[in-house]
Structure formats: C-alpha cells, structure tokens
C-alpha cells in the first residue's frame, strides 16, 4: 500500500501560537481521510501544509514519497476545494473548471471537452456558460469540485466544503462525495468540524485539538472507544465517568467513557452494572429522548428510544449498562 501523505513530526508556528504541534500521520493512497476538530485546532493548517500555502516550521512532509517542503502550490499535483469555493467571479463556469488545464497550456478544444465532462460528472451539464454569481451555494460547491477534479490530482483536499450548505443538501452531497471518491479512487483529505460528517464519510479520522492529534482511527473506534476526554466529549458527546465513579464500579482506570445509547433506565440485569440517581433534564430529539440523570453530582446522559415513557423531573431512577460498554481512557 502506497503512502499518499506523510507527516513526520510536523509543526507550524505563527509567532508564539503553535497552530500545528508535532503532528505525525500517514494517509494511504485511495483513502478517505477526515481531519476533525473545533475551529483553531490546527486541522485547516494541516490541509494548507499539504496544499503548499504554508510551510512547516519543523518536521518533514512527503507526498507520494516526494519531499513537499519548498515546493510551491502550483507545482504540486494536489488540488483544493476551498471553504467558500473561491470561484473566479469574472470567468464563466466552463472557464473556471478549465482554469487548471488552461494554465498548464492544454489546447482550447481539449480543455473545453474535459471541463464539460467534469461538469457532467458533478451533475451540472449545460451550466458552462453561466457565471458563479448566478449559481446557488450547492451548485457552486459542485463547480469547485469539478474544477479541482478535472486536473486529476493525486490528492484532493477539501476544506469544510459542505459547511455553507443546508442540512438536506449536505446529506445528499456527503453521499455523492463518498461515491465519487470510491469510483475515482483518488485520495481525499477532508477537513470538518462536524463529527457526523466525519463519521459517515471517512475511512479514518484524525481528531485534532490545540494543534495536536488526539486520536486517529476508524470512525467506529473513535466513536465507541475514545481515548481522551476531549475526543469523548467532541465526538458524539460520550459520558465521561470520573475517577470516583469508576472506583465505585470497580474499575482501576482514571476515567472511562460511556455512550448515552449504551445506557438504559432500568434495573440491572445479570452481569450488568448499575447506578442510581435522579432525573435532572430531558429533551426530545426526534428518534430518541435525551435524559440526563444526576448520580451524586455526575451528570450522565441517557439516549432512550422515543417510544419509551420519560420519567418526570426529579424522579429517582436506576440506570444500567454492560461492563463492556465502559471504555477506559488515558487522561482524567
């Protein structure tokens, strides 16, 4: 398996700010890789390091085995779909898509053909004559995608490309991006702050916080077995059980994570663990009810199926969960 992108102890400092701090990662060819984190966590800077808009302060970057430091963006076979698309307002859609081929000196007829094919691929044929200003946000997003893909990049970088779209369109684009990536076989590196997006699309996820990778793994692992408190909280709001609670349950770790959907409001069955508390909050989320149970000052969220009745506020309840759903974590 070829390594598409390799970060070896890469740092990027802006003055005293460590935007990226000793990051190591290795992205395989053909992988759909997501970089997830809150704003200012360093994920976008990592993307810009791959595109060549930033140079590392320290460390080493390789793209398909070749050293990337000192290579200007226009000499990298890497293309970017920008957050706000960055379409050229003075050019038609067709000229926007053909731009990369034009600057590489490909003939007019050939690049027109390629641009039209790319527009057809993103389901926007016959839009070539329009201007970016005449298109909706979703359409512009597709044009930006076509403009990048027409160059047949070795790595496609996507910087929160779905951030400006409404929910319905975003879900549709997620599916399309995923199937496009599978059919083209191009390595996609995707930056997002939306954990749902990262979980549903990526083959692997790197969770960023404060310039560092907190956890790197398959979506299922990151979701079910967060290794740090930050990941537990940021990816799907897991419950974090304090050391005291862990002790009471007979665990030896400093803390543990517990997914809300693994908890039930019911007396413990055989072999299950249980805690008692009072109902301290409840909200209706559609498919589930989110019930917060206060266990001696620790708030534990329970995702309860909507069909089940919701106990009133202040009701004493017993919550139970299987021991295997409790995942020990590194930090307290």
């Amino acid at each position, binding site marked *: 398996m070829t390594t598409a992108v390799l970060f070896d102890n890469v740092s990027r400092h802006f003055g005293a700010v460590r935007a990226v701090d000793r990051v190591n990662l290795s992205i395989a060819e053909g992988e759909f890789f997501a970089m997830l984190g809150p704003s200012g966590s360093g994920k976008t800077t990592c993307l810009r390091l791959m595109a060549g808009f930033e140079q590392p302060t320290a460390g080493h970057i390789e793209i398909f085995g070749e050293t990337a430091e000192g290579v200007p963006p*226009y000499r990298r076979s890497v293309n970017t779909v920008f957050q*706000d698309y960055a379409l050229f307002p003075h050019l038609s859609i067709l000229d926007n898509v053909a731009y990369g081929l034009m600057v590489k000196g490909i003939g007019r007829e050939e690049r027109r053909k390629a641009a039209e094919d790319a527009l057809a691929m993103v389901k926007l044929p016959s839009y070539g004559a329009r201007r970016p200003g005449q298109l909706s946000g979703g359409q512009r997003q597709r044009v930006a995608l076509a*403009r990048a893909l027409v160059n047949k990049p070795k790595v496609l970088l996507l910087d929160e490309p779905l951030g400006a779209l409404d929910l319905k369109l975003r879900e549709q684009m997620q599916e399309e991006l995923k199937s496009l990536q599978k059919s083209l076989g191009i390595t996609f590196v995707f930056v997002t702050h939306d954990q749902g997006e990262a979980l549903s699309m990526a083959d692997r996820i790197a969770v960023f916080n404060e310039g560092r990778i907190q956890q790197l793994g398959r979506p299922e692992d990151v979701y079910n077995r967060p290794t740090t408190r930050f990941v537990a909280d940021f990816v799907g709001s897991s419950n974090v059980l304090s050391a005291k609670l862990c002790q009471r349950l007979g665990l030896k770790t400093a803390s543990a994570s517990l997914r809300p959907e693994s908890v039930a409001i019911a007396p413990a069955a055989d072999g299950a663990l249980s805690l008692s508390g009072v109902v301290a909050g409840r909200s209706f989320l559609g498919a589930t009810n989110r019930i917060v149970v206060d266990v001696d000052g620790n708030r534990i969220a329970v995702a309860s199926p909507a069909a089940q009745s919701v106990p009133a506020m202040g009701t004493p309840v017993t919550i139970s969960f299987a021991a295997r759903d409790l995942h020990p974590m590194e930090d307290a």
Partner: protein
Amino acid sequence: MTVVAESFVLPERRGTAGRLSDFFWRHPHVLLTVLLGPPLLWLGIVYLGSLFALLLQSFFSIDEFSGLINYEFTLATYRQLFSEANLDIILRTVSMAALVTLVSALVAFPIAYYAARYARGKWKALFYLAVMLPLWSSYLVKVYAWKLILAKEGILTWFFEKLNVLWLLDAWLALPVVGGNSLSVSYTGTFIVFVYVWMPFMILPIQAALERVPANLVEASSDLGGTPAQTFRHVLFPLALPGIVAGSIFTFSLTLGDYIIPQIVGSSRLFIGQAVYAQQGTAGNIPLAAAFTVVPIVIMGAYLWMAKRMGAFDAL
C-alpha cells in the same frame, strides 16, 4: 411573571421631528425625493446645464472682423478645430495623456498591491498618509517646486553631477522631442510633473479594487497550477481592471484638461487646456474654446466604450 401594563403600541414621540419620522417611515419615496432632489437639481442645472450651454457655443462661429459671436448654427468652428495647427495641439495633448496614464498605472499598481495585500494597521495608515499628503498642499506650489527641482541649476542636475552621470542627463536632453535645454523646459519635465501630481488618483482606485479581490482567489489560482505571472494575468489583472480604468479616467482626463503644468514646466508649445484658456480669454473666441473642450469629452466617451467592450466592468 408580572403582567405588562402598557399597551402594545408605544406612545408617539413628541414634536415635529417625531411626526416627521412617522411620515417618512410610511412614505419612504418622499424621503428619497427630499434627500436626492437638491443635489440632482444642482447637478442637472448648474453642472450639466452649463456644460451643454458651453457645447452649444461650439456650433456658433466668430465674426473675424468684429470679433462678435454669430449665433447661427455652423460647423465652421469644427473645421477650424481640425486645422493643422490645432490638430497638432490635440495630438500632443492626447499622446501626453496616454503616456502619463500608462506610466501612472505601471507605477501605481505595485504600490496599490502592497497596500491592499500586505499593509496592516499602522503601515496601512502610513500608506494612506503618504499617498494623500501631496494633495494637502497647493497644486501651484508643488508645480513650482518641481520647476526648481528640474531646472538646470536644480537639485536633480546636482545629483546627476555628484553621481558622475551628468552625461546621461545630457544625452537624454539631446534627444529630439523629449529633450530640451533643461528638464524644466522639456516634455520630459512636463511628463514627470503630470505623473507626480495625478499619482494618488491612480493608486487609490486600484487599491480599492484589489482590496475587493478575496485572497483565496489568488490561492485558488496557485492551487490549480497557475504560476505567479499567470495568476496576475488571469485573476488579479482582470479583477483590478475596473480600478485601473477608474484611475485612468482621472489621470487621462485631468491631463487632457490641465493648462497650468505645461505652462510652468515644459516647452512653449500648447496643450488643449492652454488653447482653451487662450481662446476664451485673450482671443475671445468662445466657440473655438468650446470646440476644444468637446475633444476630451469625445475621447473619454470612446475610451469608456472601449473599456466596456473589453469587459472592464463585468466584475462590478
């Protein structure tokens, strides 16, 4: 929770101002008329009206014996305008204006680019100060200052002498057309002063246009394989073009109409502005003066039409 005792509609504001606010809120078009009426009347009557009155004069002629204006429609004045001596003036002025505009744009672009892209905080303030400062002092003082700088005994000659390259200046002054006895009595001198005096009018519109170009368009071009030169050619220049055109309208039309700079610095040959000044003042030939002023208007109209054809305003 306490019950709000007051009614839903808040009491009316007291006085005429309060009633006026309500009235304008209900009739926004009245407000627009009140705001725009006076300036539009001023612009329409005083400004455009007097301009058309002047243009009308160009279709009258002057009686050569009495020196009185003959108020009959004729194209005789335009025939006079296209005489060899007058065409010479027009050609000289237009060439100078075109050259001044071109060089102003070339000098202004890097400055405007730096200000729009890189200057932040106090550097930006310093930029505005440096560009605007020359506009604060009198135009006449600046032109006379340049006359001294460019004079044979001036600081520029002294400078060339100290650097032992006086021969360079002499060689330039020995050239036909652009040369002369000294820089202050040559076309070169006129050109330098024009470029200096109009420079802010070129820098500011270009800077404003470049400021409106999102930085990520430059990155996108680079990302797609565009070298810096290609990014300039295909992205920055087209998007800055409205600013360059706006700036060139200033430098071009100001040069076409100016009569002070060529009078103080330069050869004794006339420019359009000087011709207008001489015709309407000393010679009392208002029709010919009016015909001369039509020339810049026609040229600017043609220039704008061409710029529009080139797509300079497409990104507006």
